[in-house]
């Protein structure tokens, strides 16, 4: 079946019941989303579908025909990171980094639909995503930074990514 991931269409040869996470990592080699618990309880596998954050470990691809899937790889590149990625770099928000792609995608979904989300809303929204290193304060700081960067990016769409 066909899957639309990060703006391009991929022909995927997998059982329709396969969780999206496995298809992303094994078939498409997009390794940002992580396997954590496989039960939708940790958030490491979070990606966006039609602008909403979902657990890819619990979402069979049969539900995703014609829908827009976005992963961290779709937010920018190493040379030209998107605002969310830029913010996480600037705030050095990762320790082991395992939870970070999930955090970024849930935060991205929030800020896309609600650019002025309050600090409390950011915190509540990220509740389903766990971090075992304890870098929550940096993660929250990075998301607040991303909130500002996204506004700047939105205001100057032609300027592309920011230079460090």
């Amino acid at each position, binding site marked *: 079946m066909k899957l639309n991931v990060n703006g391009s269409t991929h022909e995927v040869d997998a059982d329709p019941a396969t969780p999206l996470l496995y298809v992303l990592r094994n078939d498409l080699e997009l390794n940002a989303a992580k396997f954590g618990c496989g039960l*939708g309880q940790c958030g490491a596998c979070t990606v966006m579908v039609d602008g909403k954050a979902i657990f890819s470990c619990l979402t069979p691809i049969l*539900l995703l025909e014609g829908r827009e899937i976005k992963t961290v790889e779709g937010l920018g590149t190493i040379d030209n990171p998107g605002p969310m990625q830029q913010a996480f770099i600037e705030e050095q928000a990762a320790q082991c980094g395992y939870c970070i792609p999930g955090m970024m995608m849930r935060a991205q979904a929030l800020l896309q639909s609600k650019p002025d989300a309050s600090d409390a809303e950011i915190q509540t929204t990220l509740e389903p995503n766990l971090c075992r290193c304890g870098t929550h304060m940096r993660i929250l700081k990075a998301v607040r930074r991303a909130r500002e960067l996204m506004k700047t990016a939105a205001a100057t769409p032609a300027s592309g990514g920011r230079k460090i």
Partner: protein
Amino acid sequence: MKFGRVLIGLGALITAGAAGAFAYAWKPEIAPINPPERASFDQALIEHGAKLAAVGNCTACHTNPGGKSFAGGLTLPTPFGTIYSSNITPDPETGIGTWSQAAFQRAMRDGIGRKGEHLYPAFPYDHFTIVSDDDNRALYAFLMTRQPVKATPPPNELSFPLNVRLVLAGWKMLFFKDGAYQADASQSEQWNRGAYLVNGLGHCGACHTPRNSLGAEKASLHLAGGEAEGWSAFALDGLSPAPVVWDKDSLFTYLRQGWHPDHGVANGPMGEVTGNLGLLPDSDIRAMATYVASVMGEPSADRRAKSEKLLQEVKSGLITSATSNDQSASSGGKGAAIYQAACAVCHENGRPQPFGGLDLRLSSTVHAPDPQNAINMVLYGLPAASGRTSAIMPGFADVLANDQLNDLLGYLRQHFTDEPAWADVVKRAADTRTGKYHVSIRPSDGIERGPSNIGAEDQ
């Protein structure tokens, strides 16, 4: 002139009738007092009142999630308009600080505010009326020693004539019977204690009894199943949808700990109820279980046999769920595929309750007469409780479209029950998502996570 006299007579009759109705409807003010000092209450009485307030679940309506305790202002959508709960902290201006014990007692017994105004029956005085004078004294002691909070709830949004409180006198005349609990001498002390708690402060019927078009509980259908905050409150009489029959022991376990291995976890507004019951002694929980079990009555031999057979199957580990080649569902097996891929990983992994997914053969939700609870659970799941281990389930609102949800529930219904298919899943799901049908979402610790309506997409 005859005609004129009839007219005058009629006029007099109307005037007399109106005056009589007014006299019935009018209640005097009870003089305000200065808020009593904490020292004027016995500490043991305050503590007893705390337990009783928990049974009454006062906080559920009188605290806005995230707001100050008992300061009111919670939105209560009703079929007649929106009511905002009142401030029951002892603040003299905006709360009940100037209420005497007598005024409090009258509110509980007769549904009348201190100034003599009739209270809307969203405040369940149809239940609280049976609360004993002693228990009212303890409740009063507890509430009057809370932190006073200055907060005025928004005005109620009710249309004419319901916005005129005098109308409530008529409502009371039709549906309200006041008076303290009268023990049934033919029943045990334990049963009577249970009936007192269940039908009084516990006000179980406020959710579990269906209501008539004027919002009053249908007395003839006591505990026959109702509705609460967008959830079906299952029947607690012989119509209980539980596949494994309840008895007083399982009811005790469920009410005591908030879950039961054969029935699953209390969710929706019930999570808060079982959480609050944690303050009660075992003897009171047992009394409630005894009473509810008697309302349910003895199941038929056929029902009991089915229940026992099911329990045996479940305990011996026979899982009968879909396999990838199960294409029998009318939806072409799509629901089966969704279940297998998204649900079975938890619901068939054999992890025990309350942290494992419930074997859906045991689920009252899947066996219920309407799909609302199943829709709520699949869309919004069971959010995690704060600061402690809790049962959780992820929500699938952003993954499943309404037709896919319909396929899934169609499969669950067909595969795990002998009940007929639900007809209205797509429409109900759509109304739930938009917030047209208001659903409150609570984790198993019962504190509402949605600021006002988590189902509404625009919020």
